[in-house]
């Protein structure tokens, strides 16, 4: 059975700076989406008639 998991054998290794920047972006996107969902939920609740 052919083993594909080790392919491709040649690929560009991200530098430490690249990984750090990507992690920063990922965290910011996650926090942004979470914050956005919270705001949507709060807005819907606030608009409910008392």
């Amino acid at each position: 059975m052919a083993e594909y998991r080790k392919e491709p054998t040649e690929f560009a290794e991200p530098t430490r700076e690249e990984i750090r920047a990507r992690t920063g972006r990922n965290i910011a996107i996650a926090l942004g989406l979470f914050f956005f969902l919270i705001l949507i939920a709060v807005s819907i609740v606030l608009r409910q008639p008392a």
Partner: protein
Amino acid sequence: MAVTRVTITRSVVSSLNTQQEAAGDNPAAFSAPTGAGLSLAGPGDYFALMKPRVMSLVIFTAICGLLLAPGSLSGSIGFGSALISIFCIALGAGASGALNMWYDSDIDGAMARTSQRPIPRGVLTPRAALGFGFVMSVAAVWLLLVASNWVAASLLAFTIFFYLVIYTMWLKRSTPQNIVIGGAAGAFPPMVAYAAVTGTITLDSLVLFLIIFFWTPPHFWALALYKQTDYGRVGIPMLPNVKGAPRTRTEIIIYSVLLFGLTQLPLLTGLGGIVYGIGNLLLSGTFLVLAWRVFRSRAGDKPAETDSDTLYAVRNGNQAARNLFLYSILYLFALFAVLTVDHLFFAGV
């Protein structure tokens, strides 16, 4: 008024040898020479796309617009919804800034004032700015619709459209009157906030719009007078480059007089009282004096065309223009602050 149309195409600046031009939309060109070609942009670079300094003025005028709306304090919108509405307006303004930087990425690198933005610095690709701006625009309008009403959300959507399409894509590169009409984009935020409370557009919110609308030309033209080489280098037809400095100085004083008149309107509509009247007289009076000094000066004149005696006069004139530009920022903050304080604490005086 006959408007001289100066068609500036993107080819005018196509020769700019910026890093962004060389890189195009290839993220690899923006990252370190080695590595996987991933972007090195961090959250701070995306935040810089949103023009935080412009956003601060938008947020402030929007808060004032919200507080000036009838019923804002009596609970017709609620504190939570009011906060979210202001957040949406700020987000919408930031999204407009990102979309503006996407479209202007071909010229920003050649202007000293904009050369340190994330795209010309080579930190972000134009496509990343476009995607970010688009997503933020949709999020801001949608959230405002949920938090307040369709009038405010529609106004915010129109503001983003106006800033990107009408101003950035069309007027900015085609007419020296670009910032006169384009200034409307910056004048909408208090109107949006007002609509978030009331769900309507009223004479009072229109007055707030008009004050910022007529404030914009003297504010920007003062900057353009002493920064005209920056705009000229990339072919942006600002009034001083196209019509000359004397015409610009004349239009500055005309718009300043109109602004002085318009700032009296809140007294007539009842939005402002005696405290605003006195405060406005001082603030707008000073504005008028500074505009008059620019009008009487040699600001923006080309020193090469003058002899050594007048070189000093031109330098003084440029200083007068700089003073007007800096004061105009403080002026708008102070004017809206006085109007809001008067309306909230001295109503009926």
